[in-house]
Each structure stands twice: as C-alpha cells, then as structure tokens.
C-alpha cells in the first residue's frame, strides 16, 4: 500500500537570507538581492551580477580544521541542513540508530576546491598539498560530510542531474517513502557561485545582458546564484507519531528525460509535459486545484517558451489562469540547489498564503502565454502548489505540494 508523504522541516540559505522568515520578508519586500560579483573578475562577461550568499549568514559551527578543509558548498548545505534539523522535535541521537538517509542534488559539488585543485595541477604547483583539495571537491563528499555531522547513517545518495538535481533529490525521497522503503529522509540541493560555472554559462551565451526577466518578451538570459535548500521528507504516520509540524504533503512527482540535446531543451516540450502530467496524475487533482506554479523560469529564451508550452499542454484548459512566477530574479539561478530552494519557497507559499512576484516582468510574450504574476499576491488561501525544475541534458522534474488534509 502506498504511503502518504509529508515535509516536516525545512532550511534554506540564499542571497535573500537564511531561513524561512527572512525569505518571507524578502517576498513581501519584493526584493532582489542580485549584486555585482566580487570574488572573481566579471567585467568581460555578458553579466557582472549574481545572487551571492553573504558570508555572515553561513554557520561557523565547525572547528578551524574542518572549515579549512571544506568547500564553500559544504558550508552552505551544512547551514541549511542544520536549520532543517534544528527543530526541538528532531532527535539527532535517534537519527543515528534509525539509519536516516540523506539525498542531495548538486550540479558541481565542491567546485571551488576543484578550481584550486585544477589550477595547481595545470601549473604544476603544490603537488603534495593539492591532494587535500580533492577531499571536498567530489560532490559525494558533501553528502558524507552531512552524514557524519548529523549522524545520518543511512544511505548517502548524491544526484547529479544538472539544474534539476535538488528537486530530484526530494522526488527520490518522496518515491522511496511512498513505496515503503524509507520513512524519514533528509533531502535537498545546493550549488555555489564559481568562475567555472560563470565562464561556462557565458560561453553558452545564456547570461542575461541586463535584468533577469523570466517569461518577458525581452528576456535575455539568466543570472546565476548560489544557495541550498534542505527538507525533511517523512511518512505521514511517522511524522504524526513524533508530533512534527507538517509543512505540506507531497502529492505528486514526475521525472523524465528529453533525449534531445546536451544543453538545449526540447522546443516541443515533450519530456517536460510528461513530467508535469505524471505529477498531476499521481496527485489525482484537477488543473483548477493548482493555486500557484513556482516555475523554473530561468529567463532564457529557450527555457521559458518550452516551460510555458509544457504547462499549457500538460494541464490543459484552465492552465493559463493559474498564477505563475519565477523567483530567480530575486535569487539568481542556483543550479543544482534551485529545485530544492524553490520547493522550500513553495512551502512558504502554502504556509504564508503568498505568491512571490515575477520581478522585472514588463512585456507579454505570446510564446509564454501564462498568467504571470507581476507583483506579489497575498491570498486568503493557497493550498496546492506545483514547482518545476529542468536541467541540462534534458532532465525534467515537477512536484506538487498540498496543505495537509488529514482526511
């Protein structure tokens, strides 16, 4: 028998701030925290801006040696995880004995340590020292670091599905719990700002020349960001027994592949449509039950028209009435972290009854014929939210969250 699956704890760290309350305040202020990047020279790239997490927000509850050995990505995901597990109702000692698994998604893992490693290797420097840079370069190390830090002795799973990684990690947790393989999983996603990624997106001509304007006719690309979102995904009865506060129920998840191109989404949106359809069918809801769609909405020409087509095709009549917004003009695109962070934003929409605005949207585009929310909307009731994530290589994911209905 299939189990019901809920999200009971959440931690989030982005340029908007640390934690749900700071994020909510940023939604209310309709605030974008994208700013000029100072950690590497950007003057010759198409864009100079990004959503960077302020160092003061990152937890420093690690000893000096640990801090030095860890990549920034470990610090960021550690902070989000710590916040997710900080509830008095989570017994950290119990996690060890119950073999709690941790599933994380990332595009590049410890990429800053990786940059240092390759720099030293290419220039033939610090031969003996550079091996230590490997320690937190590989993405699987961040998962294991969390396992050790929080006594999560179950399976440590690391998903690399480009920009869909974070949402996929939550989706895999959902699937495993739904089918009875697990009952309590820590899941999330993360990525950090790096020259590696910046130069790569610049080379693909995907960086916005001005503001990030998802779904706008004059959109010119994306702005990069960094951050992490971590949630506790739990079987409903397990959550009820420990008296956990339930943030939302996961009622549907779909994941497909385009089999189309290494970087471009399929313009016919076949895979994305299928992912959304699968999530909706699994949820057993009608299109007009969906109160809000937190779109992937990167601001690139190809993604936004493809996603619009997928939403309209998959959800059919009524789909163009559903309020849709992308939060990336506020946070930047956090790659593997983005799906998990936006799932947390979707939880906020449900708990605070708010739809964040799609900042910088000005001009209607017939190829994105959706009900784009220009400014934040505070509603009486937001019960059901869909969140989409699409990644390079044609990885498509869609999740549906709903306020818990105990019946």
């Amino acid at each position, binding site marked *: 028998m299939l189990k019901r699956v809920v999200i009971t704890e959440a931690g989030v760290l982005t340029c908007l701030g640390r934690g749900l309350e700071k994020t909510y305040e940023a939604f209310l202020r309709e605030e974008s925290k994208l700013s000029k990047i100072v950690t590497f020279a950007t003057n010759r790239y198409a864009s100079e801006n990004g959503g960077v997490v302020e160092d003061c927000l990152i937890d420093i509850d690690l000893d000096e040696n640990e801090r030095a050995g860890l990549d920034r990505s470990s610090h960021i995901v550690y902070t989000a995880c710590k916040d997710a597990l900080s509830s008095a109702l989570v017994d950290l000692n119990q996690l060890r004995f119950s073999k709690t698994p941790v599933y994380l998604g990332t595009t590049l893992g410890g990429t800053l340590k990786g940059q240092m490693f390759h720099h030293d290797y290419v220039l033939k420097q610090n031969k*003996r020292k550079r*091996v230590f840079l*490997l320690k937190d370069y*590989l993405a699987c190390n961040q998962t294991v670091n969390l396992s050790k830090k929080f006594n999560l*002795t179950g399976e440590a799973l690391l998903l690399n599905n480009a920009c869909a990684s974070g949402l996929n990690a939550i989706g895999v947790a959902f699937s495993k719990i739904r089918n009875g393989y697990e009952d309590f999983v820590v899941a999330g996603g993360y990525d950090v700002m790096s020259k590696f990624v910046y130069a790569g997106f610049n080379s*693909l*001509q995907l960086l916005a020349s001005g503001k990030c304007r998802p779904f706008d006719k004059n959109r010119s690309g994306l702005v990069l960001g960094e951050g992490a979102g971590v949630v506790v995904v739990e079987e409903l009865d397990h959550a009820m027994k420990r008296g956990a506060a339930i943030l939302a129920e996961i009622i549907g998840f779909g994941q497909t592949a385009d089999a189309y191109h290494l970087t471009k989404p399929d313009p016919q949106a076949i895979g994305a449509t299928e992912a959304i359809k699968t999530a909706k069918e699994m949820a057993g809801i009608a299109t007009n039950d969906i109160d809000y769609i937190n779109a992937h909405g990167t601001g690139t020409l190809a993604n936004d028209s493809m996603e619009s087509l997928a939403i309209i095709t998959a959800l059919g009549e009524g789909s163009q009435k559903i309020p849709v917004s992308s939060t990336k003009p506020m946070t930047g695109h956090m790659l593997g972290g983005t799906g998990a962070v936006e799932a947390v934003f979707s939880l906020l929409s449900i708990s605070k009854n708010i739809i964040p605005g799609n900042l910088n949207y000005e001009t209607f585009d017939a190829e994105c014929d959706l009900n784009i929310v220009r400014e934040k909307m505070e509603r009486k009731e937001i019960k059901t939210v869909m969140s989409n994530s699409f990644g*390079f290589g044609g990885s498509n994911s869609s999740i549906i969250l709903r306020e818990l209905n105990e019946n």
Partner: protein
Amino acid sequence: MKTDGVFITGIGCIGDFGAGKLEFKDFFDHVGRVKKKTLDFDFNDYMDTAMLRRADENSCFSSVAVKMAIDDAGLEMEKYAAGKIGMVMATTHGPLAYTLEYHQEMIVGDAHMVSPLLFSNSLPNTMASYVGKIFKICGSTITLTGYNAVLQAIKYGGELISGGVVDICLVVGVDIYNDVLKESYQHCVKNPEKISDNFGGSGAIVLETSQSIKKREIEPYAKLLRTEISTLNYLQLDSYKEVAMGLVNNVKDDGVEQIITSSWDNEECQRGMAVILENVKKIIPIVDCSDKFAYTFAAGEMFKVIFALLKVPYEKQNKILVQSVTKLGSCGSLLLGGCGSEI
C-alpha cells in the same frame, strides 16, 4: 504496474580487459591483467558513433556498454514507450578529461573565451545525456555520483521497476581513470605502488520485470534480491565494525554461498569480511576483486557485479553477495539469486 520481482537480463562491458562478456570472463578466469588501453578502441567497431563525435570518453564507453547490454538482452527498444524506459548512470569522477581540459582553457587561456562544448561536456550528467539521446531513453533518468554509486544505482533502478515507474531500466557504471587521479590518489593510500594502470571503462546491465521476461520468453542472469547501503566513517575501527554488522544480516538470513568483494585496500576489506564471517559463523568462499578492479571506481564496481552475474548458475537458487566497501565509509551489498524454477 507493480511487479513481483526485478531481474537482470542483459550485460554489456568494455574496458581494460577488452569488450564484451566473453573477453571479460577470459580476463577474469585466465589472464587477469590489463589487456587494452583507451586508445585501443575504435568505437565504430561496436556502434554507429555519429552522435558521439564530440563526446568525452566516458560517454563513448558507456554508450557502447549500453548497446551491448541491450543487444545481450535481446531488447527491441522501439517496441517500448520511450517514457517507460529509464536509466540510472553511476560514476565517481564523471567526465574528468574534459573537465581538466576546460580548466586548462580557463587557466592558461582566456576564461572569457572558453569552449561551450567543453563546459557542457564537463557536467557529470553528460554521459546520461548522450546515452539517453542515442537510445531514446525518455523515462526517469538520473545520474548518481560517489564511491558506491553503482550499488546505489542498481538499488534505485530496481525500485523504479518495482514501483511501476518504468518497465525497463538500464543501469550503467562508468569511470575512466587518468593521470590526474593516478597522481593524486598515490598520495592517499598506504601502498602507492598498488595504484594500477587500469583505466576503467564502462559496464551496463538491463533490469526488467518478471512479466516482461515471461512475455519475451528469455532467460535472465539473476534476480535482484536485496540491496543494502549504509554510511559511516569506517576509518574509525568501531564505526567500520558497525557498518560491517549492517551487512551481516544479508549473509546470515539469506543463505549466501559466495561473496564477491573489493575495497580501497585489501587490509581494510579483509578486516570487514572478518567481522562478517565471525558473526555468521560459517565458511563462505570469498572472491576479492580488489587487485583486478582497483581504482577504476564505478567501472570496477559494475565489473564486479557483472562478474558475479556470470557466476550465478541460472538453473539453481544460488545466492551471491556482491559487497562494496568504500573510502568514504559508504558500504553496500547486493544480493543476487539464481532464478531456478521461478521463471
């Protein structure tokens, strides 16, 4: 659709030992030494490589392994809905050669003018993108990275099938070792001379439902009985014992008749095996593949599984435990069973 079992029906492998299961078996049974280098392979000998012209070695090797596995299983892919075929790709290091080249361009060249091709081919899911496109795999597709990614991939692939998400699932392990890793890992181990010249390669298996194999009237290699994965920092002896204890139940409860294992180094591997055997109180033959597949990461892990599959006598109910003990403390075990009269 829910299924009453997940079966392995196809094997594909290409690497140090050559190409295909027969050369692989020969390598293991008789030769046991590295026979080939990456340059020895012309991928055109195995498949149409038009779509692999710009691909990295990992993508080429994994595409060939998948092609072999599909052929071995006798699958006619066009008969299946593309959305009902899934894939789980496992790798430890991903497309490292392209990643290094990309970094080189950034460091010694002009970071503002780097090749977009190198960037997109440096991402860890690039192999799944190529394989998916070539074989039209449109169902659930994920890439797992880590030291124990292959057993995790098999576990998740099995769950995708038993949950009815897909009807066919390709599980692939791929890693190509290179000088960057060789030089780096030599500083990490007690016996650096043990770092081999193996380059790895790729192995792939096909997972199917019992309904599917009955319909196709084929003989599977084995049934997927159980996969266990746990994590601890095993460099601490007590913790390692705890991890090993986690694997004991597989041995004790299920009448395992052979264990196939490998580890970062033999000493630690043997220590773990001792803990298990001490607890199950019986003698079980052990094959330690550490020397053969050392430092070939996900490729070596999949080769070990394939080796086990070739040893499971189809007609019997024999059970073989494939075990993996990794540097980061992720330990896994995969229990494979002969199918006997089940099918």
